[in-house]
């Protein structure tokens, strides 16, 4: 987990979840504040200036989406969304509105902590850190080279762009629209099948077992995530 102690704000109307999170996060010496409604959450954000927000989408007074929209007007604080399965459209909307990542309830602590860590991480510019490494995968931005277990991998420009976008946001989920916008541009943000085809090609080249991917994970119904632990 992160070395620095951070201030975390938990916005969830379920008291037990807040308790669970408070106990678990305190283990890492974080300061945990709580809010049980959207309005309280917004006020608490202003008051406590947390480093990270854990936001439940199913709040009693306003939708989690509205909270995100309001907060994003004036703050870039990382927001992690907690939501239920079968609400994929809600998750996508939340991510598009500015949330950084999500966990699906019921979630495991390990998953949550990993995503929190990614969200809190300072994102290095490619120029700051020209080489990205995780497992056997190595991406050299300066030389535009990709290696898998030391061996060079030949990627098409689109495949490289895809991989670069995922690496830039390593560990975070990227919605399909976001990826399409980044690689193909605004006007093609709905061509989901393009994304699938190229993703499939990319996986074939960098994954040891494309059907059981280790690096690029599909977040069903939402988008993709490059794992980097």
């Amino acid at each position, binding site marked *: 987990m992160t070395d620095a102690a951070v201030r975390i704000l938990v916005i969830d109307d379920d008291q037990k979840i807040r308790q669970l999170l408070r106990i678990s996060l305190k283990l890492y010496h974080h300061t945990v504040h709580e809010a049980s409604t959207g309005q309280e959450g917004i006020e608490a954000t202003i008051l406590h200036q947390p480093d990270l927000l854990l936001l439940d989408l199913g709040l009693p007074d306003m939708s989690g989406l509205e909270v995100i929209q309001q907060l994003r007007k004036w703050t870039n604080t990382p927001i992690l969304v907690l939501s239920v*399965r079968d609400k*994929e459209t809600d998750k996508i909307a939340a991510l598009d509105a500015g949330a950084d990542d999500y966990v699906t309830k*019921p979630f495991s602590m390990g998953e949550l902590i990993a995503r929190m860590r990614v969200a809190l991480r300072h994102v290095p510019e490619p120029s700051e850190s020209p080489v990205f490494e995780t497992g056997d995968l190595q991406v050299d931005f300066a030389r535009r*080279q990709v290696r898998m277990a030391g061996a060079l991998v*030949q990627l098409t420009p689109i495949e490289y762009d895809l991989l670069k976008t995922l690496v830039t946001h390593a560990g975070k989920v990227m919605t399909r629209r976001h990826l399409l916008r980044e690689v193909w541009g605004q006007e093609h943000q709905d061509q989901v099948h393009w994304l699938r085809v190229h993703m*499939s090609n990319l996986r074939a080249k960098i994954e040891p077992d*494309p059907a*059981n991917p280790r690096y690029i994970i*599909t977040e*069903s119904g939402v988008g993709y995530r490059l794992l980097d632990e």
Partner: protein
Amino acid sequence: MRRTGRGYTYGAAVIIVTLSTLVCQLIRSFFAPTNLIMIYLVGVVVVAAQYGRGPSILASFLSVAAFDYIFVPPYLTLGVSDTQYILTFVVMLLVAITISGLTVRVREQADAALERERRTASLYAMSREFASNRGIETLMSVAAHHISDVFDSQVLVALPDASGQLVVQPVPDAAPQFNTQEHAVAQWVYNNAQPAGLHSDTMPGAEGLYLPLRAARSTVGVLGIYPREKSRFLPSDQRSLLETFANQSALAIERARLAEETEQARIQVEMERERNNLLSSISHDLRTPLASITGAASSLLENNETLDRDSRRELAQLAYEEARRLNRQITNLLDMTRLESGAIHVDKEWQSLEEVVGSTLDNLTEPLESHLIQIRLPKDLPLILCDGLLIGQVLINLLENAVKYTPPGSSIEVSAFADSCEATIEVADRGPGLPPGEERLVFDKFYRAKPGSAQGVGLGLTICRSILDAHGGRIWAENREGGGAVFRFTLPFEGTPPEVESEDGITVI
């Protein structure tokens, strides 16, 4: 009913008298005039038998006149030279009239008997049709058909709705003249279980006669009869026959009602039973993992001091895995509920099967640990049009089943192939396989290979089938050569994936 048009029959009478005259003329030389009278009497009998009272009276008079005119001197006058003939004439006329009267009555009785027989036959036929028919609509059109036929009327059947108001039921040849006044008469008949209308003591000015349909327990409705010829309608013996028809119909309708009610009750009981089964299955399958979780967690609480590190870890792991399993159960049940109520929305997109499989494996890491999983997907498998989440659920269910029913360490293979119209995906195992003959039954709700033994409501495969149905695909199971079972499902291609923009082949070094 014989229709007797006046002109026609009287004309016939004249013709027959003429014929009699001709015959007499022919045999004149051989017989005395008094014997020729017999020929005329025969003619009168014929007219009486065929054409009824009026014409036969006419024939009687005409016969006497003709006899006088032609065969009694002075010939060709209506005068009489021998006064004996006056007696002859009188007696002849009397006899002719009497015979005609008798013949007409005989004929009428014969007609009446024939008519009664016809009606009884119709009543019998109607009863038989009632016995073999089930639905109330059919019964009513049978009744209407027979009654309108036998009584030469238009017929209407009205049954009460839930509040006791009469509603006219559609039958063929329905009477058109049913207005609010008639409706009021009919409603009165229903409420009071007494006949009313035409030819009755109550409201005789109505357009039709209304009879209550009285069955064993209650009045089931009203029969309305609109005779085509009001004046000739219903002498008393016909009335009782009509009431018999009505009673038969009422009994048949009541019987059909009761049968419907019994069927409804039976269906209710069946539904209750199924619902109770479902509920107890669900209760069991949700509580089982919950029991493990509660047990593990409470054990950790109770024995926090005494448990060693490894045991604590094991218990926590157990609780975690069972919680994941419970989540999958709940997903299945929710999917089932949504599918049954038609609420599921199939969101088809062009998916990479590889991706769908990848997600599935992600969801099942723990259960799959115990087996050897082999994925064989062709590199050039095209994109498939389907709902990724739902098909992922199908794969989860198939893989979970494979893990459940096969020995640990055995292999489970996932493979696929495609032709021009559909893609086929297979999940094959090396377990005991399916009981022969039950390959289709496994997809039924609540089916379980070994009753009471395995986990799971048994809904997994049923959900798979519903999902495949919603995609227009098929799913089936077979036993495999070399042992084990293979589950296959197909997803049809609808059109081709839209074109992917091509890249020039410049690669990055």
